[in-house]
């Protein structure tokens, strides 16, 4: 039986390495991004194979989904920056039945003439042959060294027994959530800070441009969005709640809700009002602030920071996870939108 599994592993790893190699070696950025998203999905399968469903969920939602969306929108922005005023007038495309008088109508008409030109931003020079072999030697050598070192390691169980021993006290009965939100809560808190910091950094660079994603003409997308949004929100909440006893949790739920937000901002970009900057800032910081505030209770009363009293552990963890989910979803949408809202600088 494990011969079949071994074969599956070898094929999967070969596939992963192949996709990664093709992705990094391609000269067309769009192809590289698509390959990268495929790589993310294959990776999710690998995590399932390694009996880590939570991580597979996160990888699919965040690694492939959110990162893929960010990459695609960045490519669109680069294309928009590289050649904003393109080409000559030509036959205009069939009238767009639903097109509202968006500012982009003329831009859309313009770039319809030479479809290929738009992609000049999306290609990049192939790698110069000069330093090729030295780079291959360095990375190959590093790979072999790593493998040799890993081969010498024996197969201990790691901290699994320690976690199992304290599961009864952790307030949840799913290992990973217990580690994330109780045993190593400090890592998770700093991780929320990291997400927040990425948002602040993106905001500090400048104001966000008019969303490049032009609403596709026709009723199909708005209709699909109307259908998918509620389902996404319900799924997100379900994931959040299920995290305490089954694979799921704040980050996966946050990613799903973030994806819903991105979908909403893509489908109807212009009718979406910029949120009040003060509320947005507080919303983005709420998750981590709540987490720290509850942690302070442990500092003053209990033995150390971030200690949950035994009987209150589950409700506390649930509150923290909700806050974290909202903040992560908000931050991911903000990162997708790009810079800070013009209202902030008023």
């Amino acid at each position: 039986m494990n011969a079949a599994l071994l074969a599956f592993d070898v094929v999967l790893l070969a596939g992963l390495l192949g996709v990664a190699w093709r992705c990094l070696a391609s000269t067309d950025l769009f192809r590289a991004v698509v390959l990268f998203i495929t790589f993310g999905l294959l990776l999710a399968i690998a995590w399932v194979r390694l009996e880590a469903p939570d991580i597979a969920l996160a990888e699919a939602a965040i690694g492939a989904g959110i990162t893929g969306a960010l990459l695609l929108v960045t490519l669109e922005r680069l294309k928009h920056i590289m050649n904003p005023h393109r080409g000559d007038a030509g036959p205009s495309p069939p009238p767009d039945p639903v097109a509202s008088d968006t500012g982009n109508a003329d831009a859309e008409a313009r770039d319809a003439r030479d479809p290929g030109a738009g992609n000049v931003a999306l290609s990049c020079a192939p790698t110069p042959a000069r330093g090729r072999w030295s780079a291959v030697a360095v990375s190959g050598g590093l790979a072999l060294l790593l493998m040799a070192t890993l081969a010498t390691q024996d197969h201990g169980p790691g901290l699994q027994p320690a976690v199992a021993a304290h599961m009864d006290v952790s307030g949840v009965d799913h290992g990973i959530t217990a580690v994330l939100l109780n045993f190593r809560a400090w890592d998770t808190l700093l991780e929320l800070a990291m997400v927040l910091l990425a948002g602040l950094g993106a905001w500090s660079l400048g104001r966000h441009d008019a969303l490049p994603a032009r609403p596709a003409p026709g009723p199909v997308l708005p209709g699909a969005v109307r259908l998918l949004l509620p389902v996404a929100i319900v799924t997100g909440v379900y994931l959040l709640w299920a995290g305490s006893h089954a694979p799921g949790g704040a980050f996966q739920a946050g990613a799903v809700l973030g994806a819903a937000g991105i979908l909403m901002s893509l489908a109807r970009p212009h009718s979406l009002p910029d949120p009040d900057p003060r509320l947005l800032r507080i919303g983005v910081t709420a998750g981590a602030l709540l987490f720290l505030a509850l942690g302070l209770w442990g500092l003053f009363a209990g033995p150390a920071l971030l200690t949950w009293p035994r009987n209150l552990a589950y409700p506390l963890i649930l509150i923290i996870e909700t806050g974290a989910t909202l903040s992560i979803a908000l931050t991911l949408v903000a990162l997708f939108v790009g810079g800070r809202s013009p209202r902030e600088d008023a």
Partner: protein
Amino acid sequence: MIADLLTAVLVLAGLVFFAAGTLGLLRFPDVYTRLHALTKADNLGLGLVVLGLMPQADGPAMILKLVLIWVLVLAAGATAAHMVAQRTWTHGEFERRE
């Protein structure tokens, strides 16, 4: 025992449709036909796989979740296909420069 046999048969049938879809993707000349191959074959394939997994499910909740997955993939597939088709129709073939 019957359930395992049923699952194996249905999943294999599903795989056949997936293979057909992939073959279509590789062989068909232009965007629109490839879209057909992908959305039609894969969705059907997925339906059969979901059916195949149902006997393995341990409770009505799991079955409903499987059906929900299938419905979502259908909706997403249809929307995506429409979007790609419309963009190609308005902006011409996304030529490949190798």
